[in-house]
């Protein structure tokens, strides 16, 4: 087959020379460009925050929000003179939601960009793969994902993700207090966060007077879950508690409707508002989701802030400070992850200012000493023994009413 595509005669001498020179020039240019990339951005007068994000691949929806939240915070800080007089620079690298690409991205930001700290997205495997050498380099990692596994890696990592038990508490509490449903089916995807939730979901059910009648698994890219839902229905489940994020939530909603399960409700994990809206359009008032205060209400920043703990003026101010520029720039786009990204940069700035240093170890120690910090997405309270910052449940159970996310009463 290939034989037909090849010329029957070889090139003449001039052609060979020309091709060789062209190849040589290309390779030389490649080497120069690679060297330039490796040496890029060594400016000394900026505070560099590196972020490995899944801008493509399965984590794209959430991680793009994370990126925009980071940039919003950087813009706000720069408007006030930056961090310790240095301009805040967000360096974003796409890890394609793959651990291998995440490692290259982290290495590039460490060696070429010489970042002061990392503030990365929700691709757990990518962050875990990089955690060992980031810890050795003594650069703090602020993460959207769960913490890495090894204690020596955890020492340099700070998670801005609410602990999985909070999702379970919020949903189980709602079922116990507001509904007659006592039999529940768990629909679980295999991601690390969902697996952690599964353990809590099983253990906590009896404490809320609930019975787990079915545990079914699915993959995030499954095109339907009819079989799993059928088994849950046969076991008498009145509610599907979904442990996992992404477009599969809409798939589950559609399947519940297609199967005619008119009494079954769906309670989704924390996720992007766009997904909640789509699922709600399918299931109507039988679709529930969880979100933090900043995700509810769309009449404007003040109304959203009012959903927060009214006694906490600092929380209300933090939500307003984030939402005003966010809404101006991105309109109705979901705020769940972006607000926590924004908070992470603000907390980082506070720590660096307190430490009066941009060195990794000083910033790490300062983050552990900041104490309770009221952010737009939650309250964070890191310490040397507590590297999962959210210690108070920030979630409300919500529904869409008249097309608007509303706290379910």
């Amino acid at each position, binding site marked *: 087959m290939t034989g037909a595509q090849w010329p029957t005669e070889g090139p003449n001498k001039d052609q060979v020379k020309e091709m060789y020179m062209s190849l040589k020039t290309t390779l030389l240019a490649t080497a120069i*460009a690679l060297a330039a990339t490796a040496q890029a951005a060594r400016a000394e007068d900026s505070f560099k925050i590196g972020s490995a994000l899944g801008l493509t691949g399965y984590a794209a929806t959430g991680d793009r929000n994370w990126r925009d939240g980071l940039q919003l915070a950087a813009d706000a800080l720069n408007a006030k003179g930056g961090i310790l007089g240095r301009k805040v620079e967000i360096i974003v690298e796409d890890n394609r939601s793959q651990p291998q690409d995440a490692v*290259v991205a982290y290495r590039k930001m*460490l060696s070429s960009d010489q970042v002061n700290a990392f503030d990365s997205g929700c691709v757990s495997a990518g962050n875990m793969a990089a955690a060992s050498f980031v810890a050795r380099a003594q650069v703090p990692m602020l993460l959207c994902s769960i913490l890495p596994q090894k204690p020596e890696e955890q020492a340099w990592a700070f998670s801005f993700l609410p602990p999985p038990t909070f999702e379970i508490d919020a949903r189980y509490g709602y079922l116990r207090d507001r509904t007659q449903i006592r039999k529940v089916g768990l629909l679980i995807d295999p991601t690390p966060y969902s697996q952690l939730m599964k353990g809590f979901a099983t253990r906590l059910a009896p404490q809320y007077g609930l019975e787990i009648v079915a545990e079914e698994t699915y993959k995030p890219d499954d095109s339907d879950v009819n079989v799993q839902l059928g088994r849950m229905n046969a076991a008498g489940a009145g509610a599907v508690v979904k442990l996992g994020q992404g477009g599969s939530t809409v798939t589950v909603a559609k399947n519940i409707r297609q199967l005619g399960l008119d009494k079954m409700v769906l309670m989704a994990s924390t996720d992007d508002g766009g997904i909640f809206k789509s699922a709600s359009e399918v299931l109507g008032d039988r679709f529930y989701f969880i979100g933090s205060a900043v995700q509810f209400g769309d009449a404007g920043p003040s109304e959203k802030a009012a959903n927060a703990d009214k006694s906490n003026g600092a929380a209300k101010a933090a939500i307003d400070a984030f939402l005003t520029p966010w809404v101006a720039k991105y309109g109705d786009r979901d705020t769940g992850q972006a607000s926590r990204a924004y908070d992470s940069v603000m907390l980082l700035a506070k720590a660096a200012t307190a430490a009066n240093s941009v060195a990794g170890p000083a910033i790490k120690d300062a983050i552990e000493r900041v104490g309770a910090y009221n952010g737009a997405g939650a309250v964070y309270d890191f310490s040397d023994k507590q590297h999962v910052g959210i210690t108070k449940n920030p979630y409300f159970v919500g529904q869409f009413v008249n097309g608007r996310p509303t706290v379910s009463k």
Partner: protein
Amino acid sequence: MLGVGLLGFVMLNGGYLVTVLGLAAIYGVFCTGLNLFMGYTGQASFGQSAFAAVGGYGTAILCAGHGWDPVAGLVVSMAIAGLLALVVGYPVMRLRGHYLAMATFALGLIVYELSVEWSGLTQGYMGYAGIPPLGFAGHELGTERAQLGALVAIMLFGVWLAERMKSSRFGRALRAIAGSEPAAMALGIPVSRYKLAAFVVAAVYASAAGSLFAHFIGFISPEVFGVPMVVLSFTMLYLGGIGTIWGPVMGAVIASLLPELFRGLKEMQDIAYSVVLILMLIFVPGGLAGLLRRLARKPT
């Protein structure tokens, strides 16, 4: 010479390009093995990632879980992968063309699912962390540059072995099968047996690549050995020149460096990378090795 120059430049300058070249060397090993099966034998396998997973998880479990020496973990994982390839390949190698491709693809998916679901062994999506760097008899290669040196040496050894196989009786039989299976059979070559042998050898290479990846990165999870690995290795193989000795290595290096060249383009990076790949496949159909062969051909 260019390769030596590039390696010297990266070794001297350090930085993240050490990681990029390290991964390229690992893929060089993987693709050299795949090339034996696809390039020389003319068979299609979409499931080599399965054997890389066996190598990666074998190394992780033996070295991180049980404190084995990296070399011992590497060798035992290769043996397990070879045995698995023998057992699976015995019935599968009787298939041809699309059926063989589908069967091997299914093998890749099965092992991927196992790595996700058998979390008691593989830790599922949580991944396996704390895998030690390459080393021997208690001496670890502590720096990335030392590891890169070792990876390049292993890759060159793999290429040398492949070259030896290619010019052996075994290699000639494989090429005869690639030309025409009925004709090879008529010449007395036991086609299924030779195909199986090539499959096993390719699996052993893939397993070595998986082990090296685990040692180099220190962490593995199922995503590492998913479909993207298959797509990337095919890209490398065709870019470098399938059926040539140095093609897989050249493809691995170029396909690893190209994204870095375009990194400054940010969101356009993937588009630029894809455009260059398409142009190369159109205008250099025999791969880079083919191009160099044309350049080296004596002018008429």
